[in-house]
């Protein structure tokens, strides 16, 4: 449990640092301040154990990374920021769930399995993103539109499957 909590702060720092480096690289100092503010706010809400400010900070991190990509900042840092942000958001939620449960059986085993899963997802995400950055495919409008529609349909099915479970 403590490990998950510590790792939350580590990943928040890592995500914020990646964004800071990206924005500082281009000298966009007002945005550097915004990134630092988001990171600090996230760390504070993680410290206090608040759910929705953390979610807001995660969305802000993804938004800042997207803006960085659009502004042609180093995409690698932006991808790292999103992966770290996703990890921090997931870790924070897990730590909060563990803390709010009145009784947890074999908490260490549970945390170990969770961290292994997260590590696998992070590693896969970074690997796939790196691969994607190396590949440069030029698509005309129609194939791009087809891929877009496929992405939309696939995601819709994925989300509806997950929601159906609940």
């Amino acid at each position, binding site marked *: 449990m403590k490990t998950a909590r510590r790792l939350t702060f580590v990943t928040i720092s890592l995500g914020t640092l990646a964004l800071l480096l990206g924005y500082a690289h281009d000298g966009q100092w007002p945005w550097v301040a915004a990134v630092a503010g988001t990171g600090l706010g996230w760390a504070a809400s993680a410290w206090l154990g608040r759910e929705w400010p953390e*979610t807001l900070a995660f*969305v802000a991190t*993804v938004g800042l*990374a*997207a803006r960085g*990509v*659009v502004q042609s900042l180093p*995409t690698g840092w*932006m*991808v790292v920021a*999103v*992966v770290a942000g*996703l990890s921090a958001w*997931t870790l924070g*939620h*897990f730590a909060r*769930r*563990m803390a709010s*449960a*009145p*009784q*947890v*059986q*074999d908490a260490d*085993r*549970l945390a170990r*399995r*969770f961290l292994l*899963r*997260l590590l*696998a*997802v*992070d590693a*896969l*995400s*970074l690997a*796939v*993103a790196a691969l*994607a*950055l190396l590949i440069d495919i030029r698509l005309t409008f129609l194939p*791009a539109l087809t891929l*877009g529609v496929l*992405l*939309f349909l696939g*995601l819709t099915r*994925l*989300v509806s*499957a*997950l*929601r159906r*479970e*609940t």
Partner: protein
Amino acid sequence: MRRSTLLAVLIYGLAFAAFTLFEGRLLVLALPLIIALAAGLLYRPQKPCLRVERVLESDRVGEGVPVAVTLRVTNEGPALEEIAVQDAPPATLHVNGNTSMLMALASDETAEITYTVEGRRGCHVFESVQAEARDHFDLSARRETLPAPEPLALYVLPAAPHVRRVAIRPRQTRVYAGSIPTRVGGAGIEFFGVRLYQPSDPPRHINWKVSARHTEALFTNEFEQEHVADVGLIVDARQRVNAMLANRELFEYSVLAASALAQAFLQEGNRVGLLLYGRFLDWTTPGYGKYQRERILRALARAESGESQVFDGLQYLPTRYFPAKSQLVLISPLCADDPPFLIALRSQGYELLVISPNPVAFERKALPDTPEIGLAARIAAIERTITFRRLRQAGVRVVDWNVEHAFERTLATALAHQPPRVRPLGIVR
């Protein structure tokens, strides 16, 4: 918003921005989110297939006695990486410890949740168990309500004081030897009369003084036979006669008295039945011994006062439940319109003993000490005295119990001696 929905919204947003801004690298940012979502789908929990077993340390206890409850959960399906199991003890019980647990359950693995409960008199029914399985990222969940496993109920029995002996004298007894005088000569302890000596009579029972006056015959002493009797306990559960204060009810004292009397009568070997007369008729058929004691105590644990238009008065007391000329014990605070029905019972040949928890004294303690309330209490007390006098004139034995005093002491004082033999209509012989 669910976490999976939020991720999907972010992915849609990034994809939309990528297509509208012709910026393919934005799709790269969406990849970690898509992988996380896919992991959620891949490891989504199956429907929990759990066997739940609830073990109570004891399914019957006294008031305030803690009972350990153990809930054993066995996973009979595929492994569940995260499952929260929540037991639902009755809200009427005070719970010590945790009733829920978060755990990972491998296939065929068993986990235990242990906590203790304690409560007041009643039959406390345990509800079903809730289980919620999730994946580690909490992107999908399955909720399941598991049927309540046996045992379903915890009986908290009334804490009955020990009553040594209650002297009763019904007009009819049963054939088995007991402790109630039967008005029939034979083997016993109390002197009953003198009769002619018969061969096989024990010589030590020969009444030499009477025999000396009759030179041609011998006379022997006869003793009063003592048998067991049928006793019908009637607990008045009508809400209108049972005064209720903020945190206690007079009915609780009626239940306490009934349990003490039931145990005392059964200990003497009598056949005892119980009728709860209130919202409905709850009849426990007569019986003997420890088994019957348990049945009566459980019926009393379940007992609640209530209102019914049918059973508003005592006129519907079902006399067919009780053997003719048996002993009836009515435990009731009584109200002014009850005596005619009780006198009617006496006229049918029943011996009637009324234990009346005093509602006037009970309520008086909780009210402020003003002259008006003092006067009202006096008037109510006088009405009660008149009611009791009417009943006593009809041959009904009445015990007025101020519940501030110990029941066993009140009973010992009021019923220490054998009751006089009275005719059905109450004329003392």
